[in-house]
């Protein structure tokens, strides 16, 4: 396959950045999108040019390291797929593909397609600890859990924290991420002990990082590679208001 790439190149966070056009003549349809970038970078290195910086780690769709906005969609055109699991067979011979970094004030570009997503780490840290007994693992059924709650919690816990929700949201809001992280604990009996404090602390950190406000556009759910539902955002709204107005907890 012949693929023309328009890739965002930016030397560092101070650089203005621009698009560069590259043409790859021998792209295999079995390659993943990242493998195509590996091939591009090998060619650039052979030509003594600077390779394109992009993030990747597991390449199995579970680590959340890969990013990229491909033709206007975070993680590209396939539903419920990360960039590393996106294969070139979903594109056509001769296609021109525009590749940009995630764009959000809270995710500043470090270089080329790499953005600083440490705002998410700080939100997770603000959630604090959860109380569990150490030592021997307890019997699996010692705490009864409603099956539907367990399923909903597991669906929320599928969030890999990649930031596609922020990249997709026209407001660059982090509500889907934060709601997935609070819901996966708040839906379970084990998560109740710190639930009230956690939800207030994480929302406060989220607001402080400069993400936008949710206006229920639902682009986040449409682009989430783990298909996290906006039902979690409604739950976060509920849990947050309930904690602020219905408890004595102040963060």
């Amino acid at each position, binding site marked *: 396959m012949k693929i023309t790439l328009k890739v965002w190149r930016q030397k560092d966070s101070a650089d203005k950045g621009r698009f560069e056009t590259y043409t790859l003549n021998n792209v295999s349809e079995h390659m993943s999108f990242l493998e195509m970038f590996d091939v591009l970078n090998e060619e650039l290195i052979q030509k003594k040019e600077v390779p394109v910086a992009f993030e990747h780690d597991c390449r199995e769709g579970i680590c959340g390291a890969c990013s990229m*906005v491909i033709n206007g969609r975070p993680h590209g055109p396939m539903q419920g797929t990360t960039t590393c699991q996106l294969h070139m067979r979903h594109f056509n011979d001769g296609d021109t593909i525009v590749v940009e970094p995630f764009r959000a004030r809270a995710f500043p570009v470090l270089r080329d397609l790499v953005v600083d997503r440490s705002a998410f780490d700080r939100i997770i840290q603000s959630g604090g600890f959860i109380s569990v007994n150490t030592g021997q693992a307890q019997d699996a059924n010692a705490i009864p859990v409603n099956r539907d709650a367990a399923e909903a919690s597991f669906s929320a816990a599928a969030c890999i924290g990649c930031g596609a929700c922020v990249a997709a949201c026209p407001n660059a809001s982090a509500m889907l991420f934060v709601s997935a992280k609070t819901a996966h604990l708040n839906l379970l009996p084990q998560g109740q002990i710190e639930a009230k404090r956690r939800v207030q602390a994480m929302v406060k950190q989220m607001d402080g990082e400069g993400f936008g406000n*949710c206006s229920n556009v639902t682009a986040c759910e449409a682009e989430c590679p783990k298909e996290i539902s906006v039902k979690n955002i409604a739950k976060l709204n509920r849990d947050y208001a309930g904690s602020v107005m219905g408890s004595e907890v102040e963060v």
Partner: protein
Amino acid sequence: MGWLKNFLTSSIGKKLVMSLTGLFLILFLVVHLIGNLQLLQFMAHDSAGEIGRAFNEYALKMTTFLPIKVVSYGLYAFILIHAVQGWMLWRQNAAARGPVRYAVSDLRAVNTNARVATRMGWLGTIIFIFIILHMYQFWLQMKMGNLPMANYGDGDVKDLYTIVAEAYTNPLYVILYVVSMFFIGVHLWHGFQSAFQTLGLNHNKYTPLIHKLGKGYSILVPLGFAIIPVVMYLQSLNA
């Protein structure tokens, strides 16, 4: 009290204010429509020689009955809060994208219209301008203007009906009102269901109902308002 300020200035608190004021305005529109339908003669059944009586007596009630007056001041406040808060959110959200925009945009949504949902600020601004024009044209006339008087037996009543009927002999006003109602309908297409999601109401049983109700509301209520100037204009042609 610091907690209350923190709550109302948090991202979720600000959206909650939008949701609650929006839901109040949604309720208000229904009441407003029921009153306005009395402008239509086939609804009002005014007897011959007393055309406009039902509407004029309703308008008098609206401006003199104390509980309604109290609620109306709440209404003005809620319109302003919804508008000002909306503009602030619009500005903050635009800034949150950062200095560089996407070169290619392909926006999708799962259960709303993405084109509408991302243009709520523009739609709201158009609607706000319409509300100012509308209030200047009728509300201010009723409150302070020099209106013709009508008498139905027990004292003079301000004849707002005649003012409205005269306005709608002008096709430009008719177009302004019909187009504005279209924008209100589009705004509500996203706003109605969005208000419930912000309240935290997303439920397997109720959400499908809310979505259907919202779509029905955002078509029928603006349509009901839009019919009035059109019918009154057509009547003026026959007269």
